């Protein structure tokens, strides 16, 4: 039997699944006949889980047991801005896991973000299975182009936990361009303006002979339609405070009511000139009176509210145009993606910016999943090949001295790509080096996202400068990063699929798959008599049967989730690769918040002095260990080349580990090192 491979647009607010069969792409509707389902997960009292628009409706009554916008949190560290923001906005409990991970606590159980997303994906899988009557195990899952490695990896993990073989992590704008241009024999340059629920991406592509080459992509993972809602919420809340003297933001139930009202109003504003928001009871005051709200918002009022947010997207567009070496006049088409682009305010602004009307023949809610389905079919040999040549959205960097991060692979470099840099030890008989890998566009290491770090220690010890260590940075076609260190002399290798410290390790993922945590998702329609049967044969598949079995509170589900991290798992991990990671993972992971400060830290200024003194025009040193254990970078560079700097090991800065700000003196010291000294 031919492979069935679906395309899933896993959105911040809504998700959509499509399938290409016999050359036709079909958007698969859910049991309620809806073509998109809310990416909302509701945990019922019996331990089972409901996903989609019905789950979203539960948020008013059970805000703490209903998780929305998980995509905003996936692949993030607990200390990140986004997590803080979500804690202020959402009623569900967001807590910290080991290694600065994020967990959602619901009814006393903890779930990682990949698990939550896996439940949404399982729902999508089940929708596809209802339509095909067959087991669906292969999928292309889309992510915002601007997602970093941590977010991509976590999304891929979510797919696996959902029981899917993830054929490809595909960038949303690229998928949209594919849906737009596939099989059309186009020869065009297009821009995809993708404003989703929580993220904004702009990609500029050249399409020719079914080759879709991304020339540049830029984005903002902190900007989306949710932010538009927030502006309306603020307006309503401020009104409410002015009128009643009570802040509804402090009441999770009231806040959810405002949020739903705001979202509804926003959607209505894409059609109507003005909307009236009317909530009879936002909350009940201490005297037992119900306090409501009634307010009209016009398009122009709304435009003022969100003007700055829209302008922010064009700043990003400027960057993308510049990076692609094109002007808006070079573009043959503008493709709009994402629900918020239905707003006239957004469309008008886009038309003005690009000096042309965006395409109207593309459905902004479905186009991404359609593109994903086309690519999925092509990957399993069911559609003629369209080549997608994508790029990496962010600089890949290595941590170097002075708290800096030096780029190794620049953003908008096509993938797959590999770059190798050669390092040498500085200290005689040095035993190990520490490699830290970042993603981001910032010079300062701390402003970038730490993807991972590892210690390389298996190499043969020798006099300084004689040990040559090759560090290879690879970005694959999924945009996932892999870093390998190897010793030239012995061929000794240490590699790490750079894993997010706040994510799940391989063993945890396997355990979650074995436990079939996603199986908690109740099969839509199984317990709802009023549902109309799906158009396709609806006999229960094996998976559905399993899902139903697990939907009831099974004893194993109430046991502590493996995601909470048992000591055994950690031990397993360190035992797996003892020679590669020295003392094991514990040393490398970020155990304390302080460690993170260390990453950005310089060590004492004397270190930098040493580095500067030791430099010459051809070689720059990498301070990868403590002040004594420097290693050098000897790149094949031209004389006088701007050298590549230096990283400091966390241990070296124990004394001042709490000092988050790298010292200015130290910085200029590092900068002034060899090459700029004569300026």
């Amino acid at each position, binding site marked *: 039997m031919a492979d069935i491979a679906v395309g899933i647009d896993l959105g911040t607010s809504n998700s959509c699944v499509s399938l290409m069969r016999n050359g036709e792409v079909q958007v698969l509707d859910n049991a309620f006949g809806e073509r998109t389902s809310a990416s909302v997960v509701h945990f019922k009292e019996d331990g089972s889980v409901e996903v989609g628009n019905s789950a979203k409706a539960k948020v008013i009554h059970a805000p703490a047991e209903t998780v929305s916008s998980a995509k905003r949190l996936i692949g993030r560290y607990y200390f990140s801005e986004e997590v803080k923001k979500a804690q202020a906005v959402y009623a569900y409990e967001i807590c910290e896991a080991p290694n600065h991970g994020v967990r959602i606590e619901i009814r006393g159980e903890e779930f990682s973000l990949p698990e939550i997303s896996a439940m949404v994906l399982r729902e999508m899988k089940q929708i596809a299975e209802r339509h095909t009557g067959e087991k669906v195990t292969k999928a292309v899952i889309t992510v915002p182009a601007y997602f970093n490695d941590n977010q991509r990896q976590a999304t891929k993990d979510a797919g696996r936990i959902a029981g899917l073989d993830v054929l490809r992590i595909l960038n949303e704008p690229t998928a949209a361009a594919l849906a737009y241009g596939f099989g059309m024999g186009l020869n065009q340059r297009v821009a995809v303006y993708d404003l989703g629920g929580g993220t904004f991406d702009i990609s500029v592509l*050249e399409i020719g002979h079914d080759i879709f080459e991304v020339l540049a992509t830029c984005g903002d993972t902190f900007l989306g339609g949710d932010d538009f809602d927030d502006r309306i919420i603020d307006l309503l809340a401020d009104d409410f405070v002015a009128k009643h003297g009570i802040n509804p933001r402090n009441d999770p139930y009231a806040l959810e009511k405002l949020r739903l009202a705001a979202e509804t109003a926003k959607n209505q504003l894409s059609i109507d000139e003005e909307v009236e928001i009317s909530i009879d009871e936002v909350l009940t005051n201490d005297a037992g009176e119900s306090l409501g709200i009634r307010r009209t918002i016009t398009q122009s009022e709304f435009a003022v509210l969100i003007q700055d947010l829209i302008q922010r997207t064009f700043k990003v567009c400027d960057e993308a145009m510049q990076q692609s070496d094109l002007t808006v006049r070079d573009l043959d088409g503008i493709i709009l993606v994402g629900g918020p682009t239905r707003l006239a305010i957004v469309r008008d602004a886009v038309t003005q910016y690009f000096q042309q009307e965006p395409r109207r023949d593309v459905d902004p809610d479905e186009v991404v999943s359609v593109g994903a389905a086309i690519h999925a079919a092509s990957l399993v040999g069911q559609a003629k090949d369209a*080549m997608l040549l994508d790029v990496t959205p962010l600089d890949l960097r290595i941590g170097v001295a002075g708290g800096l991060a030096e780029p190794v692979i620049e953003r908008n470099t096509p993938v797959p790509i590999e770059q190798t840099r050669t390092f040498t030890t500085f200290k005689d008989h040095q035993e190990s080096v520490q490699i830290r890998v970042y993603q981001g566009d910032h010079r300062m290491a701390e402003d970038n996202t730490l993807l991972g770090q590892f210690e390389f220690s298996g190499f043969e010890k020798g006099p300084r400068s004689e040990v040559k260590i090759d560090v290879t940075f690879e970005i694959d076609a999924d945009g996932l990063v892999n870093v390998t260190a190897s010793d030239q002399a012995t061929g000794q290798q240490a590699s790490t699929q750079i894993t997010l410290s706040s994510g799940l390790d391989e063993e945890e993922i396997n355990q979650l798959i074995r436990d079939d945590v996603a199986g908690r998702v109740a099969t839509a329609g199984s317990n709802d008599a009023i549902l109309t049967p799906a158009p396709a044969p609806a006999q229960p598949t094996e998976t559905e049967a399993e899902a139903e079995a697990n939907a009831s509170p099974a004893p194993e589900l109430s046991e502590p989730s493996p995601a909470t991290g048992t000591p055994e798992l950690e031990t397993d991990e360190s035992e797996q690769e003892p020679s590669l990671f020295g003392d094991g993972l514990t040393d490398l992971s970020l155990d304390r918040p302080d460690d993170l400060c260390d990453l950005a830290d310089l060590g004492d200024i004397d270190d930098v002095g040493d580095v500067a003194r030791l430099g010459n025009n051809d070689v720059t040193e990498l301070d990868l260990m403590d002040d004594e254990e420097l290693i050098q970078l000897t790149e094949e560079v031209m004389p006088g080349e701007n050298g590549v700097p230096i990283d400091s090991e966390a241990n070296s800065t124990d004394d001042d580990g709490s000092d988050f700000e790298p010292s200015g003196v130290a910085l200029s010291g590092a900068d002034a090192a060899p090459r700029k000294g004569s300026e």
Partner: protein
Amino acid sequence: MTSAAVEALEITALAKIIDELDYYQLLNVGPDASTSDIRKAFHVSSRSFHPDANRDLVGDLRIQCQQISKRITEAYCVLRDTRRRNAYDVKKSEGQSLRIQIAEARNAHVEQRKAERLGATAQGRQFHGKAEAALKAGNLTSAIQHIQMALTFEAGNVGFKSLLDELRQRKKELG
């Protein structure tokens, strides 16, 4: 022979010699290929070697194909960008290497400034160095002569020119 078998042979053969090929050879274009030729060549090569086009490969062949794909991307990435391409051409002509770090171009403007200050050619650097030494020794006339010599090798060097102007000005002031 099946096309798959031909492809396998091609991959193995290419993987064997990949380190001996320069970026132009990798993309199968001439040294004066235009950016658009280079883009076309990249598309053609991607059809053959991109991982998406080779999902069925297993084992060594798969790994070899991935290596080729990554190297082709690297070649494209360097050659499509004028600054990188120039830097690469220089490096290659000096026999240093058939590859270049793609991040190098980021520092190109720094390089250029440095070249302007210290000289971009061996002779330019040499005479600039002599001029600096003469200046240190207090011999302004000699310094001017040396920097003029440096300028004969690098007529367009803005840094040298401004240094010459400055030295001449100083000489004038000294009378």
